[in-house]
């Protein structure tokens, strides 16, 4: 019985896992490339940045907020960090993580301060900071790209290399290792710390959390600070992959990540969401895109399919409640939660 209970508490994750397994099975039959080591490693390489953002966003969603500004914030971090490294005489990886993490946290704290200080809902504030960050960035850079970056930053570092029998190389790059670190750190934060428990509580029932003595300002700072840190680190790793800094390169990526995290079962109202669901959500989006590419389907179909999946995921998770509502409306009218 306890096993079943576990499944019941992770309904969304389990459903997504089943869908994902079926998809992978289907794709492996339809395309012999899909299950190749080369394809799987490039899937991870290409989605490491999204995954780092996703776990950051997960923390914000759990706390009952939302952040639209993180992708643009990552671009801001890239520019400011590039400038800082010049100032610091080149820098290195340690300084790189420190500088980009700290700038990211700073940008996150701007969001947290505005949301908490003015008691304005997070979507409004982060849409505002999204525009402000991007506008300022374009204004000060005049849209110029930076190619002249420190060599440590753009050098390729592999954590795994393998040459297959037919001579093609498959490898995992540094971003994947960093992503794993971010995922584990976030998992520990939300699952095993008092702070994590308070974040869930705050997202679930803010008034009850306040009465229990949870420091609300601290919770906002942790959630948006964590998101900011992840945005900064993701920005750092994205430069390592593409080897240039382009001001509008990340613009628009936020909705893709948000969609993936919501697909993974994080509740927009707060209080619910898991690392597992978050990973599955991002991988679902990634594998859908990958599969469509391999099958030679028009890339325009991708957006449509992701949109459809969100609709199906969200509406089926409500079906049970829906049919119940039809049978016994009184029950829902009187329930508070």
């Amino acid at each position: 019985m306890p096993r079943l209970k576990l499944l019941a508490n992770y309904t969304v994750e389990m459903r997504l896992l089943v869908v994902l397994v079926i998809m992978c099975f289907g794709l492996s039959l339809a395309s012999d490339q899909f299950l190749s080591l080369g394809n799987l490693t490039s899937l991870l390489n290409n989605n490491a940045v999204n995954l780092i953002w996703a776990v950051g966003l997960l923390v914000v969603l759990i706390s009952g907020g939302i952040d639209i500004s993180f992708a643009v914030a990552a671009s801001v971090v890239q520019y400011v960090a590039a400038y800082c490294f010049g100032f610091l005489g080149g820098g290195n990886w340690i300084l790189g993580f420190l500088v980009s993490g700290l700038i990211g946290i700073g940008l996150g704290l701007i969001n947290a301060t505005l949301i908490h200080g003015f008691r304005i809902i997070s979507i409004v504030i982060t849409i505002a900071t999204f525009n402000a960050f991007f506008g300022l960035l374009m204004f000060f850079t005049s849209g110029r790209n930076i190619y002249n970056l420190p060599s440590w930053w753009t050098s390729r570092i592999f954590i795994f290399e393998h040459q297959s029998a037919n001579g093609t190389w498959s490898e995992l790059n540094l971003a994947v290792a960093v992503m794993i670190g971010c995922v584990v750190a976030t998992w520990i934060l939300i699952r095993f710390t008092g702070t994590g428990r308070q974040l869930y509580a705050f997202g679930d029932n803010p008034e009850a959390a306040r009465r229990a003595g949870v420091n609300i300002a601290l919770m906002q700072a942790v959630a948006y600070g964590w998101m900011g840190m992840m945005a900064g680190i993701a920005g750092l790793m994205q430069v390592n992959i593409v080897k240039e800094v382009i001001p509008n390169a990340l613009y628009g990526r936020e909705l893709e990540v948000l969609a993936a995290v919501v697909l993974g079962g994080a509740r927009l109202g707060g209080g619910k969401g898991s690392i597992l669901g978050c990973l599955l959500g991002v991988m679902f989006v990634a594998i859908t895109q990958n599969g469509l590419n391999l099958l030679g389907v028009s890339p325009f179909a991708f957006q449509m399919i992701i949109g459809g999946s969100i609709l199906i995921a969200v509406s089926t998770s409500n079906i049970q409640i829906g049919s119940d509502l039809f049978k016994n409306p009184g029950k829902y009218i009187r329930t508070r939660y």
Partner: protein
Amino acid sequence: MTTDPEWVLSLENVSKNFGGVKALTKVSFRVKPGEVHCLAGENGCGKSTLIKIITGVYTPSSGAKLNILGKEIEHITPALAREMGISVIWQDLALFPHMSVAENISFDEVVGFWPKLVRTESFKPKVEAILKRLNVEMDLDEPIKDLPIAQRQIVAIARALMGNAKLIFMDEPTSSLTQSETKMLMRIVQKLSEDGVAVVFVSHRLAEVLAISSQVTVLRDGHLVGVFPTEGMTQTKLAELMTNLTLVNEVTATPDIDTESILEIENLSRENEFQNVSLNIKKGEIVGLTGLIGAGRTELAHALIGMTKPTSGTIRLGGKEVNFSSIRDAILEGIAYVSEDRLSLGLIQPQSITDNIVTTVLNRILTFMGFVSTKKKESMVNYWIKELAIRIGEPSDAVSTLSGGNQQRVVLAKWLATEPQLMILDNPTVGVDVGARAGIFRIVKSLAEQGMGILLISDEVHEVHFNSDRVLVMTNGEINLEHNPLEHSVEQLESIVYA
């Protein structure tokens, strides 16, 4: 360990002003260890202000003396109150719906500024021990949102005990419980009391106050009326202490109403809700419908107004068989339904009194162009405000600014504006002060005298006995008794309902 102090909590000379408003004036309040005490008073009498002072949310005016477990406390904060063993279970329970039972009960242990490692598993033995002490079994991993209200209440109590509470305040704990759930809660309270944990109920359900507590402290307008033993106290006397009004409970039933029927129901059934219900309401008749919560009363009302479809049976309205497919149909045929949950369903709280009253009749106050006519709207609203004596500032004020009793009058006005021939009142006095209840029933009686048929649904046996022409008792989805208030006493009715 010091010897047992005489009082677990002793307050003296507590005053609190908000701006120029005196919320509390020189109130004292004492609770003995293990005592079940009741703090009674009408809405706005200062009950919640007092609790908030005790738990450190508000600071009292100078001169107040606060003593917990024999220790003088200079300045109390929420954290200190909890540490000293004072815990409040708010009416909304303040639980976390998506978190598990164990996580909720142990939540206060994880609160803190600095990060620390926590594992739910490590709290489980203590949580289990507490539930065992309360003699309840519960799945610790179940999320709160899947539990019925009564179980949530137990979780809230267990959470208080996790912090070694010596005194637990319960704010209106039974307002959403069924009778049997209330009984279970009472058993748990009894158990706590035997263990030396004092419990203070904050309530204005009079029957309950008297049934469970040994002492009652009554507040009125921020003043202490007195502390009374509940033995020998009657509901009427307690209500008088709370309101300072002389309340007369007289049976208002009119004997032998002999008019034509408005509503005739025959063998109405709906699967799992009610079976073979037949009833008849005549013009000008007030029919009371009571029974335990969950007996199927509200479900019957929902079927009458077309919110749900009965599986079999017939409904005749004014002699004509009807088959509503929506609430709109029912309104057009002259049925008004005043729902139980006024706060969320009956009124749109932030909107003005005017807009709330006219929502049901927008089609009747249009200009010839099809816009809402300000003139027609105002005259309609003014008529009903006068007719029902609603005490308001301006008709444009938000409904949320009104007291419970006046809000209920706005709900009545909104439905009366539809000129119904049959009105269904579902627990019309929930959250309405004792003093204001009589006013509501006077309106109901005068409506009946004008020829309206009324179905009065209520949990409170006293309410239906004194205000209906006849009372039907519903048990397990069936109407199995008719009670005549003129021939039988309220005690007889009580013994049948609570049997």
